[in-house]
């Protein structure tokens, strides 16, 4: 399971990096969203998967799942939401001002 999820995360990172390198702002924002998905999965994997019960004390179990990655991911989810929201509004404003969503055009490069 761990290896499979790690490979899935790797694929998502590949997709995210490809999207980040493109010229359209929307694709870049999507890229950053996918990247945070990948990172959440990776964090999850680090604590080991499906080993022990839900980290709620009082559950009848001799072992709990690692709670630390979960806490980290919870923070990360919220932060990545904030980043996405900010980037979206930034893209919206940029489009209002410049009439373009193409980073290359914004820099004044002529099209290839």
């Amino acid at each position: 399971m761990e290896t499979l999820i790690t490979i899935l995360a790797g694929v998502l990172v590949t997709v995210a990096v490809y999207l980040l390198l493109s010229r359209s702002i929307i694709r870049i924002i999507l890229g950053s969203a996918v990247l945070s998905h990948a990172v959440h999965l990776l964090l999850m994997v680090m604590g080991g998967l499906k080993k022990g019960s839900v980290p709620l004390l009082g559950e009848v179990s001799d072992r709990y799942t690692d709670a630390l990655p979960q806490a980290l991911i919870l923070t990360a989810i919220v932060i990545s939401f904030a980043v996405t929201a900010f980037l979206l509004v930034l893209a919206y404003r940029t489009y209002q001002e410049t009439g373009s969503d193409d980073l290359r055009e914004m820099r004044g490069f002529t099209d290839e």
Partner: protein
Amino acid sequence: MLTITLAIFIPFLAALFVPSIYKWKPDKIGWFILIIPLVLFISLVRFIPRVAGGETISHTFDWIPSANIYFTTYLDGLSLIFGLLITGVGSLVILYSIYYLTARESLSHFYVYLLMFMGAMLGVVFSDNMMVLYVFWELTSISSFLLIAFWYHRKQSRYGAQKSMLITVSGGVAMLAGFIMLYAMTGSFSIRENIAMIGEFTNHALFVPAMILVLLGAFTKSAQFPFHIWLPDAMEAPTPVSAYLHSATMVKAGIYLVARFTGIFGGDAVWFYTVSIVGIFTLFWGSFNAVRQTDLKALLAYSTISQLGLVMSLFGLGSAALHEGYSDQSVLYAQATFAALFHLINHSTFKGALFMVVGIVDLNAGTRDVRRLGGLMALMPVTFTIALIGSFSMAGLPPFNGFLSKEMFFEAMLTVRHLEFFSIGSWGILFPILAWVGSIFTFVYSMIIVFQTFFGAHQPERLDREAHEAPMGMLIAPSILGLLVVAVFFFPNVVGDYLLRPAMSAIYPSLPNIAGAMKSIKIWHGPNLALWMTVGVVVIGFLLYASLKYWRSMYKVGPFRWGLDSVYNGALSMMERSSTVLTNRYMTGYLRHYLIYIFGIFLILTAGTLVLVGGVPFDFSNDSSITVNEYILVFGMMVAGVLMIFVSSRVTAILLNGVLGYSIALFFVIFRAPDLALTQIVIETVTTALFLLCFYFLPEVKKERVKRPAKIVNLLIAISVGTLVTVIALAVQGSNMFDSISIYFENAYELTGGKNIVNTILGDFRAFDTMLEVVVLFIAGIGVYTLVKLKSRKEGRDVED
């Protein structure tokens, strides 16, 4: 004793109160400031008898003990001399500047900078720990920068400030490297401990590099050739600053450093030659160039360079005393150090007085150009007297203190002929010759100051103001210095016994008898070679001065004309141009390029490390089992992810992103993370809604019009980054170097009273993180709000247009 440590901090503390005093009594502020150096001076004077009795006073408190950095202050004969100069000349300079600067200037800035300098300079001379010394050293450079640029509306001031900053700070950084090398050798940052231990390390590979780097710091600060070029440009500072920083104290920090480190590096041939040759050449070059100056302050600047070279060369010669332990020979060479210390004090008195005189002339005649000045003797009798005393002392004439130290200087230079080690041979004769020639030029420019300013025809039509004598208050400070010049001549051994001898023991801690072995200073020592050299200086100097107009044109020919200044300016503008070109090449402002740099460096460093370390540990034995529906979920996510690259419709793209997000939520359920699953579902829903909302305002995602090569590059980078991340993640899981710390949190109920471990981590164990996370959300919220809000205003304005 805490007194010395306090002495460093009092000026800094006082600087804090300057602005409020300035608000209260803007025109009287100088008088309040004057109290500080005066009090410090008096408290230092009270130490003189104890230090003369052989006592040293030190006080330590821990600063960064883990890095061997202790705030140790140390008072011995050497630091006492400098401490007295800093506070004594400081008091006089502040008294003088009360009259020099009008209330229209931003006095509060001026005094804050000046106090900052005073504290930093005291820190330099009282610190025993090299790191602490370095911090104060750079602080003096910074305050000097601020003071030179005091009239920052002038282009020349800004240029001079930048130049001094660049040169002295680069020297300071070199010095820091030298200190670190010393630490690498001896394991101590304490100068005294280094002096005690260095004997075992003189053959260490780092010994000479450390020495050269420390000397670079000293030479840049003390304006030694070829780093002297910053000092003439520093004359753009107000005259009190020139008198204080750029003649009496800061430029002597380099000399202090050389004196202090003689105990460490002295006795080595490289040190001996570098210090003495650079010094003697600077003496010659400075005095030679001073003669051609027409601006009195520029003349004094070159004269300071030359005099600093004189003191420097004496310290170089004096270091020979450490070559072979205590003997009659070493006493002979140590005499050079004795002369150096004496001249150091004398220079501060007569040069301080001369700077103040030039300031008075500048202020009351409207110019400091010697070609326009003349005949001021009758108009400014007091100023003239002080100028006469200062100049004649500088020229080395009796009955002024400069005569005594100049004679000692000649004698010391003559002893080099007898030097039998360091394979000096017959080259030693060059030292007295250069010294003598330099002294002739010194005589000539000293005469220029007196005669061209105060004698000759008065030309009122060429002056900007009607010349008149300065007010009484302004004359007090230079008069005190002038009196000292004469007093030291008649009572030289008061200075010698109470200040110089204790300083000798401080410079030569390994030769405890050396201070007592110094000859006492004699006003008349009979006709010897040194005296005849002085007579020669006077005769030839006078002839040269009389024939000045015939040979002055020599400065316009050939190699004398192009100076090091053009080299500096050229190098600076070349560096600016090339860095602009270079920066513009890679800072394109295009996000894709920056991301490529980031990913590229990540790939090179991490993949490189993995290859270097060799072998990535994989261990799949610990994996848990996989069910069929989990396979389906993973497969679905991979397809959704890869599809995102190819879709052209933005709604499809956001839906695919939603697929990813909700699948992850399902995984969180499977992986026993209920909190995460809940959060993920909520956030994913809001995000998708937000995307759709924004898409209403944004254009359709166009098919990427990117050339094929660029696409391939992107794909390659993406695949390599993805692979590398996977490999690293697998390697991390494969190795088990540390125990998990998560067991700790399973005590959550006892520690916090909560049963949900994730919640207790967020709300209790790491509550600060959570609080800051909320701050991030808050900031993002403000950002979003501002961006939306800004628009309406801007649009409103557009409509008006």
